[in-house]
């Protein structure tokens, strides 16, 4: 059972035991390195997560399951977001009465109670005060991905308004996100590669009708079931190593018909997590070449090739690599005649960044970096360049070929034709090339 729950930020403090929050704050602030998500001080166990600059903290004196508590914290954030539209310091501050109401329904005397947005709905009487988004930052999935893709204003709407506004749009969003982990060695061989994917939904459908989500026919779960053996990918089929499902998903028809039957809760939720290990067509290839020009000078030629189809493009591409400690100066030769390239040497972090706004599929870009050293130690310093890591996002493209064939909404109403938004996004998680 929880003893306390509090929300902390530099400025907002709603609630409870003043000393505990002080203890917490001091501990976290002065921790060497990243403070772990749970720790103990004098018999009090703290759990926290920091999102959007706000600490969400729970305390207990008991030896509880950490996941149990963490799940509560995450669920609370989700419900807050569902009600307030966005979750940040300002929205919490303006909606403090509403937040109190929600906390009261979710937790009673430290025991989790009504945990879903729709369960709570009938007991919440305050309405959210909306705040204007200062910038077009992420919103739909703020805690899920720091993505910059398609921030639709529609999905900032708090859910509480759905029920009583007649002119509300009837719509549902389905996102397939894939995060890529790739590790190349210096020769361009893939040492490690995996895809971590999620199917996520946010439902604004009236009356929460049952949904049927149908995926590719050739979907197989588990390498052992793939039939091809040898751990390799079977041609023409999508093999997931493993997956798990949200509470509301009925998987009875999954194996035979690749169909998920969903009773969607209000607000956003993860339908399914999946992961794929092993080889796949990596969307980018990175080729670093290091030359010793002189004892004082090193030159890095960095070639990046997009291997995905030309009708797609990647955005927010950032290529980073550390330079030797001995570095005094770094100069760049940016590809000429192409817009949207910039390179920067960050001296304090010993880091060089190359940003490319839009990276078309099938194209190759090259950056030449000249590094000047303090001492004639080019040979030793060579090792200190790299690894090269890459951040990017490719909208409307996914690597695994997992696809939503269709989304059927069961409804008895006539003219019930809600909007269905299906999006695919591929993102880098850890996309690294060793030098």
């Amino acid at each position: 059972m929880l003893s306390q729950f509090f929300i902390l930020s530099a400025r907002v403090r709603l609630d409870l035991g003043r000393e505990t929050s002080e203890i917490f704050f001091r501990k976290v602030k002065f921790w060497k390195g990243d403070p772990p998500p749970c720790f103990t001080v004098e018999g009090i166990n703290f759990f926290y997560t920091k999102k959007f600059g706000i600490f969400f903290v729970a305390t207990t004196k008991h030896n509880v399951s950490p996941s149990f508590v963490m799940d509560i914290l995450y669920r609370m954030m989700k419900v807050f977001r569902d009600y307030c539209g966005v979750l940040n310091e300002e929205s919490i501050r303006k909606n403090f009465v509403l937040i109190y109401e929600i906390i009261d329904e979710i937790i009673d005397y430290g025991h989790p109670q009504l945990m879903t947005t729709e369960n709570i709905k009938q007991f919440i009487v305050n309405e959210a005060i909306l705040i204007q988004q200062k910038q077009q930052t992420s919103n739909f999935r703020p805690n899920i991905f720091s993505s910059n893709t398609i921030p639709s204003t529609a999905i900032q709407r708090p859910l509480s308004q759905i029920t009583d506004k007649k002119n509300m749009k009837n719509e549902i969003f389905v996102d397939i996100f894939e995060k890529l982990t790739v590790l190349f060695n210096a020769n361009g061989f893939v040492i490690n590669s995996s895809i971590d994917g999620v199917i996520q939904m946010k439902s604004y459908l009236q009356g929460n009708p049952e949904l049927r989500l149908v995926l590719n026919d050739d979907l197989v779960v588990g390498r052992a079931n793939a039939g091809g053996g040898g751990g390799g990918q079977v041609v023409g089929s999508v093999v997931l190593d493993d997956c798990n499902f949200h509470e509301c998903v009925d998987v009875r028809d999954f194996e035979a018909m690749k169909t998920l039957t969903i009773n969607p809760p209000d607000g956003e939720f993860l339908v399914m997590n999946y992961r794929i290990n092993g080889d796949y067509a990596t969307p980018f290839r990175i080729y670093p070449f290091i030359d010793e020009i002189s004892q004082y000078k090193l030159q890095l030629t960095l070639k990046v090739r997009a291997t995905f189809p030309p009708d797609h493009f990647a955005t927010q591409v950032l290529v980073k690599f550390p330079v030797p400690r001995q570095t005094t100066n770094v100069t760049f030769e940016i590809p000429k005649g192409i817009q949207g390239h910039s390179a920067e040497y960050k001296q304090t972090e010993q880091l060089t960044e190359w940003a490319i706004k839009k990276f078309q599929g099938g194209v190759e870009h090259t950056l030449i970096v000249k590094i000047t050293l303090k001492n004639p130690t080019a040979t030793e310093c060579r090792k200190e360049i790299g690894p090269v890591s890459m951040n990017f996002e490719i909208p409307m493209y996914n690597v695994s070929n997992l696809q939503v064939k269709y989304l059927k909404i069961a409804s008895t109403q006539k003219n019930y034709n809600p909007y269905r938004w299906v999006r695919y996004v591929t993102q880098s998680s850890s996309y690294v090339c060793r030098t």
Partner: protein
Amino acid sequence: MNPAGNIGSGAAGSSASTLPPPQFFVDHKKGEVNELKQLLRAVSLDKDINKRRDVIKKVIAYMTLGIDVSRLYPEMVKASMTDDVVMKKMIYLYLINYAEQNQELAILAINTFLMDCKQQNHKIRGLALRSLCSLRFEGVQQYLQQAIQEGLNDVDPYVKKTAIIGCVKFYHMSKKDFKKTDFLDTLYKLTKDHDALVVINAIEAINEIRANKGGIDIQRPLVIHLLNRIKDFNEWGQSIILDLTSKYTPSTQEEMYDIMNLLEDRFKHASSSVVLGAVKVFLHLTKDDEILCRQVFERLQAPLITLMTSSETTESYEVSFNVLSHIHLLVVKGANQVFESEYKHFFIKYDEPSYIKNLKLEILAYVASPNNIQEIVNELSEYVTDVNAEIAKKSIKCFGTIIIRLTKMSKTVAAQLRNFLSLRISYVTTETVIVLKDILRKYRNFIDDFIPFFSKISLDQIIEVEGKCAYAWILGEFGESIDESPYILEKMIEEQKEFNSVKLSGVLLTATFKLFFKRAPEVQRILGSLLESLIKNVNETDLKQRAVFYFRLLKTDVGLAEKIVTGSQEKIHEFYEDKNEELRERLFLEFNSLSVVYQKPSERFLKDQILRQAQAIEKKYYSKGRWAKSVRERTVGQPDDDEEQAEATNKIKVTEQQQTVASLDDLLDFGGSSSQSNITQNSSNTNTTQPIDLLGDLDLGASSGNMGGYQPQVLQNNNNVGGGLISDDLINTTAAYNQNMQKQSVPKQPTVNYALDSLSGFDNNMFGLGKAQQTNQLVELTPTPDIDSERFQQLWMQLPECQNIQKPLRQDVIFQCSDVEQLLAQHRIYCMASGQIGNELKFFFYAQLMDKSGYFLLETLLNQQTSVLTSNLKTTRTDVGLAFLNNLYKGFGTLLLQ
């Protein structure tokens, strides 16, 4: 808190869309509360509900900011008589918040709550009941009980579940009143309710109310009932049910398989708390069947990795951290082979928090096997050149773990460490040397591969005390192979001129001392000046004493000193830290809890009552089977069921403690008075076992550890020489150091020593040592005589009397049976039975020769009135009977009048 500024521009579409949105967070000075009071009164009759709401909202805003608005209580109570739920909720929030400070007025609020508990609307009934139960002050119980009673019988599940939590609140408010109700029975009935939340709340309530008795009684029907409908519950409900199931022991094997089949699909759940809960059930069910347990490991590998990666994908590192902590426990606990093929998942990513990276590295070290070692070693080597020094160090540590774990691959992997030494990055070099120290303790022959590197390391490459200690140790231990070792040590000593670090100085001393026996001509001068400066210039007693000790050891017998220091070097096969089975077993028992994350058992972080409750659960459910041992060990001094009883037990404990203290005083007395006669003989008699321990500790702590093993030997061989020396040592730890080393037999006040000795269970020869030396005829006795009471009786009947002795006892000492027993037990004469009749103590003692070739049986009477000891000896070995009596006299030591 800063003012929010113009909120108005940001708000749109709220309830008050026609009005400018109210400014809740504006700075207010004193006097504004009065204004608010006026406003509350003025607005109370206003028809516009929004206006009234806004005023209330303002009050709440003040409250949130910590401004004291408790003066508004009467107005707020009045305002609570409204049908507007929005206002009601806010007012309730206020009323509860200030109830404690306004207990008289709060009675008014109670009335409102009670009325609302009978409302038609179930939402209001629930709300009122929850608020009512949140009031915490004397006298509220009487109102509460009735309301809860009605709530528990309410038709609406929302009210019912609120009433259940109300029960818990009521219980904490007054346990006495709670016992008078039948709430507990009702709660048990409600565990079969059709509403899921009601069931869960009932279980949790019983768990909390009966916490001192180990929570809810877990019976088969309850478990089966819950498991059959587990899908009706949300993630948290399922977790609670799974936790409950993990404590349940199925009656048959079939039932066990049924439960596992039923729960298998829980592994596919996206909630880590459900999956880990299910894992716990599986592990507990299969705990005594190794084959099944292994199958479970295999089954849970994929789901755990999916949980880990999916939470990383969503950047919920908190969840990932917990899952990784559990994987870590599993791999150190034998599931490493299962995770072996998935090692790539534990490669670290550059943007992960350090707590994740650290765990992954540790896991990598454990899943390393001949099948993946090359990849893992390559990967770890990459991290060593990482910009992050902490990760680099940790990676090198992992090398150490792998080399020690995988004996067959150790040589190849260790070769990699040489590359790190040539990197010339100071923290890398330092960490590598630290790791090498441990490796060389296990694989002594590896030194050959590293000799060229050790000679070449420049000293400024080794930073931090720990690194220097490791380096010094290696130089001392393998100095004969490293040509430059004396000179490197000399340089290190020079750098440590001030002896700032006691630890390092100690290690340097030991290393130099060891090296002296290997390279005497080169080291003699270094050692001499080191000893001199340590003895002369250092204030740190431990360090100084060690130098003195070494010095005397050298003076006494160089050959012996060498034997002690460079004796056979035993290989260390396993390190305690790596083989801490007991801890892991406990963590396994506490699976899916904070213990796993903290990597320590719950008694190390839970406090007081909560800890006792946790132990009560263990005692209740795990006192049989695999974990019985773990449970027993931790539940020493178990509290009793009831708190009152627990208190009573505590009291008893206190008195026991006092008694212990008292008897300790007795002994102190006894030791003190007896010492007077002893001192005159020879101060070396004050030699106790305590200093041995002290020195052992010192050495173990500071040096490599293999010195410690030789300490007892020193004393055995050197009773005469070492005695005085060591007693000096002890006394000097408490007294100022006496420069005059010749004064070995200065009378000291050994009171403390005696007391310590009488209590310690060591075998030593302190009392009457002088006498023993004179007659010098003692028999060697075994510490483990194989005789039981039956055999004793039998022998006693059979054997003829061998000796009958009478000795005068000291008159100034009062002692008890236990004192005498303890005293003799130190001399391996053990008590079979004892008793006290008036002033006479009667004992039956027994002892057995070391080679188990003969028994000694004694009937002993100590008459404290007449101060006479009478003892009747029977033995199967009459030839050594007289010698045994010497043992006995020695045992009684100063109890006897000399």
